[in-house]
């Protein structure tokens, strides 16, 4: 009942949300060198293996190279992982293992500040990640041109939108999880099906009709479609549906995350 009310009342926000974001940014600045070695290597490997390796065997109807087909997917998938990791496992660590959420709540910051700051940080991490992959693709452009339109600049707002949505989704899950092992559900039931089936690796049109209809309910499908359109410079009104999907989905998951975090932390 109170959780349902918490979905519609306006969030209780203050400067605390910014300080929560800032704390995460401070930690990131301390550790980014060691962390980025692992995270930074991955797009290179995937682009070389899938784009150059596997891509030689792939023939597309659209006469695109496979790397051109793959790039929009990578620009959505890896940022999704970044957001899910930060606001899923990361948030759960701060909530349950290190109990730093409890410490923050002894300051004037509210639960809404806390969840919002972390979700915005997850959004930031996801956006950094997308920009990094974009840079990798630009560096590899002489060998495989993946970006053919200046509209690619719109990748940035798309990354923000989907980063917010996946961060809020993961935060909702963190507020429900009782043990680290529960994240297996998030990963295997939510994240991995989206990863394989959202049209990043193969055209969704190759799937039967019913599967395409199911896929419509996966948020990653919409960010992949948006990325695909802006990279090719193929803008049309139909894309507004995808934008609306991410906006509404992001807002709904955000409100769910706040409500569940309040339920978890205020007892």
């Amino acid at each position: 009942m109170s959780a349902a009310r918490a979905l519609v009342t306006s969030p209780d926000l203050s400067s605390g949300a910014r300080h929560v974001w800032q704390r995460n940014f401070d930690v990131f600045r301390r550790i980014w060198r060691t962390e980025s070695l692992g995270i930074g290597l991955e797009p290179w490997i995937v682009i070389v293996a899938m784009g150059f390796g596997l891509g030689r065997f792939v023939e597309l109807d659209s006469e695109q190279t496979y790397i051109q087909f793959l790039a929009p997917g990578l620009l959505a998938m890896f940022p999704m992982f970044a957001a899910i990791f930060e606001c899923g496992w990361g948030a759960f660590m701060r909530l349950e293992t290190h109990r730093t959420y409890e410490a923050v709540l002894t300051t004037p910051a509210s639960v809404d500040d806390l969840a919002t700051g972390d979700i915005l940080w997850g959004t930031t991490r996801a956006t950094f990640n997308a920009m990094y992959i974009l840079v990798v693709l630009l560096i590899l452009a002489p060998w495989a041109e993946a970006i053919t339109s200046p509209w690619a600049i719109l990748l940035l707002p798309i990354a923000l939108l989907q980063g917010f949505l996946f961060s809020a989704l993961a935060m909702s899950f963190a507020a429900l999880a009782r043990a680290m092992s529960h994240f297996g559900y998030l990963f295997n039931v939510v994240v991995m099906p989206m990863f394989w089936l959202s049209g990043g690796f193969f055209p969704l049109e190759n799937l039967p009709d019913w599967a395409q209809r199911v896929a419509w309910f996966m948020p990653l499908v919409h960010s992949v479609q948006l990325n695909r359109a802006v990279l090719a410079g193929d803008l049309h009104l139909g894309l507004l549906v995808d934008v609306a999907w991410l906006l509404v989905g992001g807002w709904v998951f955000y409100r769910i995350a706040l409500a569940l975090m309040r339920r978890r932390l205020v007892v």
Partner: protein
Amino acid sequence: MDRQAVVATQLTKRFGDNVAVDGVTFEVQDGEIFGLLGPNGAGKTTTIRMITCASPITAGHLVVSGHDVAEEPRLVKSRIGVVPQDENLDPDLPVRKNLEVYARYFDLPGDVIQRRVSEQLAFFELEAKAKDRVDTLSGGMRRRLLIARALIHEPDLLVLDEPTVGLDPQARHLVWDQLRRLREHGVTQLLTTHYMDEAAQLCDRIVVMNHGTILAEGTPRALVREHAGERVLELRLPSEERDALLAEANLPGLDLEAYGDVAYLFGDEVALALIATQLDDEFRSLFRPANLEDVFLRLTGRDLLE
């Protein structure tokens, strides 16, 4: 004029059918160290959680540092410092940065933060550790860092939940010493403890809680005199032997509290001295001054056996 750091009136907390705090009324005066004593499950931590706005009150009225916790939690939280029972330092940040990041949540200006952090590190003798990871600190150092963190915004009231639990004797004494120095600086403190020596060392005033209610309130000395008298006779005898001894002595007006083969006798000092002389065995009896532990056991003891 005295001001109250905490005014709790008929304060109540229910979790479903379970009443954790059952209509308690007490005040914490500015400048004092006030102790909440009681066994585990007495409602101490729940009371603390309501005072620190971590847990909403079910009924009653609670004003902390002049603000109603239900109406203005942000204002209350900006005026109190909280030392939790379980350490919750940020393991991703070194010692100094832990304090800086925490201070930022109070919207303090950068130069004030830097000055206060340096002051706290000096006061709690943690300067040498400023750049270290928090997980390399000893238990005592971490506890001091938690107290330093709670003081970073110069709160009106410092709330400590079991401030020395799990510390070795040296570390406990260092923490006690620092808490007493803080009182000299005028820092009001509210602490929970189930260590009676801690309450006796630190507290100006105490309430004893059990099952969510207050059983007694007063200064440590007054509580001891009222509930345990001046001296207590401790007997370590098998119960049959003890009963025989007491029947033979036949001294009316003595109170007995027994826990297994240890019994505490309260009452007229002359009568107690008489029994002690009869036994004349330092292993089997101890005639000693009464302390808070005796008060605690008399007020809450029977439940400890449950």
